[in-house]
């Protein structure tokens, strides 16, 4: 092999690398974002968990297949982020009209010590019939948090034993087959969430 063919081969390798890069960039641009919310299709795994619902019954993700599921981590003593986010989701779901019955909001407590099933049931009841409170021990909760790459931890308690819990702000939205599709957080607005939920329901 002489120097000339080596050089031309090297040029071919370089050209192929550049072409690949261009193709990757092009593919990224041509895919129009069909949804208003951030897409997480293919980024996070399908919905899966083993927890207890606010009636004290053991439930899994399978029990919610067929519904569009919104997964949110929080706690009932949460002073600001949780109630605002849940109220926003309630508005978005109400705007769906009759289709609202095919949506479930799973509110997973990151403070199961204080959030009993009864307390959870009363709390989520404020927001609507689509809201379900879920709880579980560390062995159930930790794998779920890891699966969706969220973190939570308890702040040290004050003199009265009250404590805050630091947690994620993400609302993970799954389609009726349980696939992770969209991501919302407290900075979103009810109208765009509602529009995207309607699109997910239509796609079925």
């Amino acid at each position: 092999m002489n120097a000339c063919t080596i050089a031309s081969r090297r040029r071919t390798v370089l050209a192929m690398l550049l072409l690949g890069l261009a193709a990757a960039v092009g593919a990224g641009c041509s895919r129009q974002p069909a949804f208003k919310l951030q897409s997480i299709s293919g980024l996070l795994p399908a919905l899966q968990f083993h927890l207890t619902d606010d009636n004290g019954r053991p439930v899994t993700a399978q029990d919610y297949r067929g519904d569009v599921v919104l997964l949110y981590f929080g706690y009932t003593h949460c002073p600001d982020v949780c109630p605002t986010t849940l109220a926003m989701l309630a508005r978005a779901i109400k705007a769906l009209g009759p289709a609202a019955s095919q949506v479930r909001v799973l509110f997973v407590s990151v403070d199961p010590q204080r959030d009993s099933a009864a307390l959870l049931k009363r709390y989520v009841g404020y927001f609507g019939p689509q809201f379900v409170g879920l709880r579980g021990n560390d062995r159930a909760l930790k794998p779920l948090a890891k699966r969706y790459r969220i973190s939570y931890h308890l702040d040290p308690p004050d003199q009265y034993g009250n404590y805050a819990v630091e947690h994620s702000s993400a609302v993970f939205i799954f389609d009726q087959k349980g696939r992770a599709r969209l991501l919302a957080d407290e900075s979103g607005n009810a109208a765009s969430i509602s529009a995207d939920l309607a699109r997910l329901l239509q796609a079925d």
Partner: protein
Amino acid sequence: MLGLSRAFGASVASGISAFLPYLTPWDFSPTVVLVCAVTAILYIRGLAAVRQRGVHPGFWRPFSFLLGLALIYGVLQTYFDFLSQHMFWIHRLQHLVLHHLAPFLMVIALPGPILRAGIPRRWRGAEKALWHRAGIRQVMALLQNPLMAGFLFVGLIYFWLIPAIHFTAMLDADRYRLMNWSMAVDGVLFWWLMLTPRSAQGSAAVAYGPRVTVLVVTGFLQLFLGFYFVIQKTTLFTVYGVCGRAWAISPLVDQQIGGCITWIPPAMMSLLGVLVVIHHALHDQERSPVKSQSSSTAAAAAAR
């Protein structure tokens, strides 16, 4: 006495068990464990082999190499990885180790001959043949082109810090692994090209002048990026808020500390790299006059 030692033993045991959760992998990766273990075994075998031949690499070289390797393992396969996923500045620290500090420590120890000596005899031929394969040689020639190496080194930092790309890399486990691997592998390639003396780099060795240029330019490009993060008034990387930070800290403070880590230590390491290159250049010069002297005496002897 017995009671005391028993109490001491118990406290040590409880101390270890208290730390154990922090030392176990957050996301266990067989690949990382295997690569680190194989590298460590090759190096230690190689050390024994060269010692038998009467070559003593001293204390600092093996220490530096194994420390770098341990750092890579540590930031990927302990609780540190969890913190890196949930705090921007710790993520920057993780990449500082993977892309700069650990490869620098490993490469500066000139581990090539020792690693090669550690390869079992029956695989040595295969190892040699591997480097002579046309495909491998072409890829290496492309990667070890100084312009390409500098472009890749800074380009990877910029690429993974494009906010939209960063968002998906922190959510998707596969992209996250790809990101960390790309940082570590490119770190080793880059610093090897920059810091290994020409005499140990073979025929494709890069001259010292271009190396200094690449180090200075890449240093400045990293400095700009870090500075840009520090002066931002809004959060660029929202994924840490969405997924929850490891502990309560203002998102902007997190970003500013992360910016400082992207800016100052890499710039200092580029400078350190330049000093190493200058050292090699001077060392080579010291050697070459001897060579020319001996050749001139040889010429004189021939003339006589």
